[in-house]
């Protein structure tokens, strides 16, 4: 019993790290420009397909797939910013929501058209199988995703708090007009923010692809978790997303095991709503 419980918690932490990994991009875009990217889940999906194509064409694992997905998605992020976001940001909130939602559907059904609706999957042993530590099973692919989640969170946090680029980005986020008067081009900063956010999301997708199924609609399944993680962690807070991701992962696993899987979403969302009652800005969000 206790033994299995340890496995449940370990599994929950690994799951939570993955949640954190694919939520960081969403929280970054929100923090930088108050835009909710509803296409976020589909960016994850694109990252997964990049990993799949890299594997089928080159036989390469995430060592090639992950950097390539990061690069491609970062490029896409810049294109999306200049092609769509920059203009719809001037419009009402509803235009932003529908704009990114439209983008989500465009991406989803383009992939659908190109790859078809079939479920795809990468081989299980692409990332070194499974470790067995005193009977506790840890999948290498999930561990890798977890470690990368920590690194990405730490890296983004350092970037925002310790570098000139980060200060400029935050300045734009705070007050774009004032930043412009100080000689910072808001456009450039926001494009960089989109590149980083989309790149991190692509990276997440490529890593998740090593242990999850790949299908054009997978963004729907994963997207909701990302939004919950980000609002629990506090919109715009990268470390908040990490803590929230881990929390949700562990609570989901524990409640799924102890109470029953069909109730775990009820437990997670009830706790989530209860928490937001007391702290609407989330764990680490700005008041």
């Amino acid at each position, binding site marked *: *019993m206790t033994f*299995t419980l340890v*496995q*449940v918690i370990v*599994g*929950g932490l690994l*799951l939570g790290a993955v949640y954190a990994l694919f939520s960081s991009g969403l929280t970054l875009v929100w923090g930088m420009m108050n835009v909710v990217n509803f296409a976020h889940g589909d960016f994850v999906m694109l990252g997964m397909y990049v990993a799949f194509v890299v594997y089928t064409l080159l036989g390469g694992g995430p060592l090639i797939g992950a950097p390539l997905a990061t690069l491609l998605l970062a490029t896409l992020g810049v294109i999306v910013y200049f092609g769509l976001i920059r203009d719809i940001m001037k419009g009402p909130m509803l235009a932003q929501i529908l704009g990114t939602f439209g983008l989500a559907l465009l991406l989803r*059904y383009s992939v*659908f058209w190109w790859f*078809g*609706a*079939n*479920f*795809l*999957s990468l081989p*299980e042993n692409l990332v070194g199988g*499974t470790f*067995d530590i005193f009977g506790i*099973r840890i*999948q290498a692919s*999930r561990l890798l995703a977890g470690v990368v989640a920590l690194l990405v969170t730490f890296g983004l946090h350092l970037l925002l708090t310790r570098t000139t680029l980060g200060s400029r980005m935050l300045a734009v986020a705070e007050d774009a007009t004032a930043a412009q008067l100080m000689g910072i081009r808001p456009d450039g900063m926001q494009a960089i923010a989109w590149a980083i956010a989309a790149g991190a999301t692509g990276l997440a997708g490529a890593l998740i692809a090593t*242990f*999850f*199924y790949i*299908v*054009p*609609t997978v963004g*729907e*399944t*994963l997207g909701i*978790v990302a939004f919950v993680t980000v609002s629990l962690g506090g919109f715009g807070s990268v470390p908040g997303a990490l803590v929230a991701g881990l929390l949700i992962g562990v609570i*989901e*696993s*524990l409640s*799924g*095991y102890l109470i*029953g*899987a*069909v109730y*775990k*979403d009820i437990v997670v969302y009830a706790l989530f709503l209860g928490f937001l009652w007391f702290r609407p800005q989330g764990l680490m969000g700005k008041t």
Partner: protein
Amino acid sequence: MRFSHVIGVFSAAVMSVALAGNAAAQSKTVKIGGIFPMSGNAATIGVHVKHAFDVALDIINNPHPELGNFPLAKNGGLAGLGDAKVEIVYADNQGSPATGQNQALRLITEEKVVALTGAYQSGITLTASAIAEKYSIPFVNGESVAQNLTERGFKWFFRVTPIATDFARVYYEFLTDMKAAGNKTDNIAIVHDNTEYGASVANTIATVFKEKGIPIALDVAYASNATDVQSQVLQLREKKPDVVIMISYTSDAILFSKTMQALDYKPPMLLADDSGYSDPSFIKSAGKLSQGAFNRSSWSLGPAGSPTAVIAKMYKDKSGDEMDDTTARQMQALFVLCEAIDRAGSTEPAKIQAALKATDLKPDQIMMGYKGVKFDDKGQNILASGLIIQLQDGENYVSVWPKASAEKAPIMPYKGW
């Protein structure tokens, strides 16, 4: 005054268009509505069914003497309606019962279809067929197995597939035989999602087994389209059931196989209830992790040259995938519907309904391994039946039970990966 004039002229125009459209349909094409998941997580089902229906329409609308006595194959079109061609108008149910209902309404009122088929997910068949009932349009279902669909006293709903109770009995008899052969089968766990399909099938199996004196030891319910199933697998690993019955759609089925491998859990026997485990993309994605999984089926490829083998080959050429049980059952429903329309010699819904009620197809007139097609008062096919297949090599299912129709002997225990 002027406004009502406009309205009057407009409605006259609409009516004449509608009437003209109807007259044209009478003489040339028979429009049938097909409601299926074309997007969402079950979209692969919609893709397969479209290929299958293309093949079925080819058989119905063009002469295919190589199919022998198979109904509707001989000449081009429906002989009973002056060789009228059949056309399918598709609608996407998006995996949502509300959408399925709206699409049924659209197909009936705007597209003027004479009958409906679909809608894969039991929960959507439930809502879509309620609209057909309201508008007195025949609804022929080939694949939804939730018990209650034919318990609603509907007059326009016909179901060709065997249902949950039929399969629960098949499972019971199969497990009894396996026990007689020396396997442990008393401690049974059911893993199922919380959709109409998952919940009702689990409930039916539990009821049938309880009646036979074997209560289900563990019930693991989960929300479908899960992001993670570790806790469910760990629950199974701890309780150590002899048999795990899996009732899951494709996405969850793949996730379960991957997670079982990651957590190194193999039940001694894994028995799947069709759906996800029959999806060819499940076999491609996770078949090698699920070797030895038992599954139910009503589809088995006949000898070379038989109508089933010919149809399977046509389907493979069209879609690139092997024919699977779900797709074949959907295709069979379309044949049953078209055969009834042909016999009715009319596109009038009431005449089609009467013809469906009089349907009596023999085993050599159908493509499934049923004992035939004949509907009872509730609209359920009383001759539907099934067999057990096993994914022995992780690539292809072979029939293993009952012995009479088995290609190979069942292999125990579950091998996994």
